[in-house]
């Protein structure tokens, strides 16, 4: 037993219901000391009264009022996922036979594509040959169109200058065009496309 009155911290320890080897002597002391016991009992009455205070309810429309002022922010990837899920739901047939038919059609398409991929994989030399022809045709067409565009904008002499500049000049022009397209895309995204959707309750 402790032969002095309890200190404020010790009274708080008891009121907070703390446990440990240091608490037992304090408990023993209040069994013997009327003054400290009275303090603890009064403290416990206070704590008990506060702990029994009810939680008060706001008005029934509280949540609606809050939601009316809250902007529900939906990130773009969630919006995209929801849209995709919506399309899947919409496109999935409702009747079981139709779903089976759609599944069979999907499997057939997948099987045909798989066979085509395997066949193409076993004929790589033919693929390479065809690819070379297509690439040459595309390059010729591109240069022709570019020459026509340059000729139309800057006059026929500029086509000669372009030819004289060779692939380096062509690459520089294409790179400039690509940078301009990317910059325009970014500007449009910043100005128009918000990153996600924002809505308020009741407006969605």
């Amino acid at each position, binding site marked *: 037993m402790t032969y002095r009155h309890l200190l404020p*911290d010790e009274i*708080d320890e008891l009121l907070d219901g703390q446990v440990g080897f240091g608490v037992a002597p304090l408990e023993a002391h209040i069994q013997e000391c009327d003054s400290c016991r009275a303090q603890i009992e*009064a*403290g416990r009455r206070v704590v008990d009264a*506060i702990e029994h205070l*009810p939680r008060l309810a706001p008005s029934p429309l509280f949540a609606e009022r809050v939601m009316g002022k809250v902007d*529900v922010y939906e990130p773009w990837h*969630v919006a995209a996922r929801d849209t995709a899920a919506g399309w899947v739901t919409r496109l999935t047939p409702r009747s079981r036979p139709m779903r089976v038919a759609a599944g069979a059609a999907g499997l057939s398409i997948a099987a045909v594509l798989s066979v085509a991929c395997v066949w193409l994989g076993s004929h790589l030399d033919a693929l390479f040959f065809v690819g070379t022809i297509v690439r040459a045709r595309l390059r010729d067409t591109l240069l022709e169109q570019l020459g026509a565009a340059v000729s139309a904008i800057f006059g026929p002499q500029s086509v000669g200058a372009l030819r004289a500049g060779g692939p380096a000049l062509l690459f520089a022009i294409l790179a400039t065009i690509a940078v301009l397209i990317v910059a325009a895309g970014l500007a449009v995204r910043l100005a128009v496309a918000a990153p996600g959707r924002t809505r308020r309750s009741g407006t969605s």
Partner: protein
Amino acid sequence: MPDPLFDLPNLPDADVVVLAQQGREAAYRELIRRYERPVFSLVYRMVRDRETAEELAQDTFVKALNNIDRYSPEFKLSSWLFKIANNLAIDQLRKARLPTVSLSGAPDAATAAEIEATSFEVANHEPSALQALEAREIGSAIERAIAKLRPEYRSCIIMRHVEGRSYEEIATTLDLPLGTVKTYIHRARNELRTALEGVDDG
């Protein structure tokens, strides 16, 4: 995989917050449902005015939910809400000294209908009539005594004994040193004990 939105009431706060961050309106509503009473109770006991408390509690949720994407999960959601609510209440108390309103009706309520309209819904406790009467008396006395405490003592003692928060959580929530929180709670208990002595004697 089952949609987590169907199981919202059973999800922990952190998961509901993640759903709210994905823009799920139902998750926003679930967070409001969970904390509207604790937040409103804290704010009301701070400002002692129902209308103001309702506005401040609303502002608390609007501020928190509009910044839900910035919420950091290492901080407890309830602590974050209490922090915002307490700061708003303290700001309000600094702006104006508000009159006290009884739990059983506004002071200017003249008719029974007005008293009923301005009374609070008190939930959960279903004791006997005598116990209810005694509890109401001591409840009113303790409410009045809490209203007379300094605002800093008030928020500490409410969080400790109404919300059951630890000293450390209160210190974090209110941005106070741990020792200061202990001192405030000790002094608040002493002041409340003195205030209740008269009631007990009567």
